């Protein structure tokens, strides 16, 4: 599926990442940006099975950064906040983002929305095993929807990796 607003925006169902262990998570403090827990993935090589899903003609296959984010009921990540942002991003032209849902169960209404200049163009469901492959860029933001407190016990866990061309 190609979504309007990005040259690449694709969903792949039923993706597994055997042997991947969620890193220790810490709480993000700035509630006007988001309320969530996060942890960096130290060994980026373990993500090779995910990179294999990228179009073979796409040169962006080098994982430069990966992080796990986890949302409990009441949590969210707003669109103006990029949980993977890094000062070195200024050098990335149009990076590719991979998002693998590692949640224990589906959470309807807890979608991840990609937006172009604020308008949502691509929704990623909170469904375990769903892999999203999306091109980022200066005009593309993303928000992780508020996870309702009415869904007691719900937990959304996403592995987010950013890929660029090998240099």
């Amino acid at each position, binding site marked *: 599926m190609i979504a309007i607003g990005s040259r690449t925006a694709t969903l792949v169902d039923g993706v597994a990442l055997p042997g991947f262990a969620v890193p220790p998570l810490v709480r993000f*403090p700035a*509630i*006007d940006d988001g309320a969530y827990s996060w942890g960096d993935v130290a060994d980026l090589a373990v993500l090779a099975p995910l990179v294999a899903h990228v179009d073979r003609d796409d040169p962006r296959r080098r994982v430069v950064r990966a992080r796990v984010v986890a949302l409990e009921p009441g949590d*969210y990540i*707003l*669109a103006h906040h990029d949980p993977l942002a890094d000062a070195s991003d200024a050098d990335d032209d149009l990076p590719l983002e991979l998002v693998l849902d590692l949640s224990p169960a589906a959470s309807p209404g807890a979608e991840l929305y990609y937006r172009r200049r604020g308008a949502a163009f691509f929704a990623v469901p909170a469904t375990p095993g769903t892999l999203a492959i999306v091109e980022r860029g200066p005009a593309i933001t993303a928000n992780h929807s508020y996870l*309702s407190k009415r869904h007691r016990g719900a937990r959304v866990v996403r592995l987010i990796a950013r890929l660029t061309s090998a240099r």
Partner: protein
Amino acid sequence: MTWRVPWCDRDEVALADSWRRAQPFPHVVVDDVLADDGFDALFEILEDEPVERYVADLYAFDATAREPTTAAFVELRAELGRVLAPALARVTGRHVTRADLRAYAYRAGDHLLPHTDHQDELARVLAYAYYLPSPEPPQGGELELFAGYASARVIEPRANRIAIFEVSDASLHQVREVMAGTRLSLAGWFYA
């Protein structure tokens, strides 16, 4: 429908003192805003105003448009400014002249996440929320004020109550998720 200043001159001094002392940032909460016979006329005006669904990363609620469509709602907004702005200027020490006004319905699951209302290009001085009686009073939907990122004050959305607070970069606040029922309110800003 006629707004009234919901406090007398004698209360105004105490209210101004309360405003200045309030933590985490200047605010006041006043109950019994309208007389009991004021609601019928108010709801008559609200029933004629179209309501739409608004959903974004920050919020989910039903509301009237930014600009009212009926003459009665336009007048309701204008009179709110005429009646309350002078009194609020005395209480807060801030120069305000006019108000805007939208009606909101937060249903189960609706929310407004932490944010400040300050924008350089807008002359918002005071924010307010006036809570209406609801056929299904809300569980949740409280106005929560933060000191930095820490919760500092939780204000229940009690019917016929108005909460007013200063708009600044420091006035971080949210409307907690409504867990059940419907939270009805009129809200907006007073401007310089």
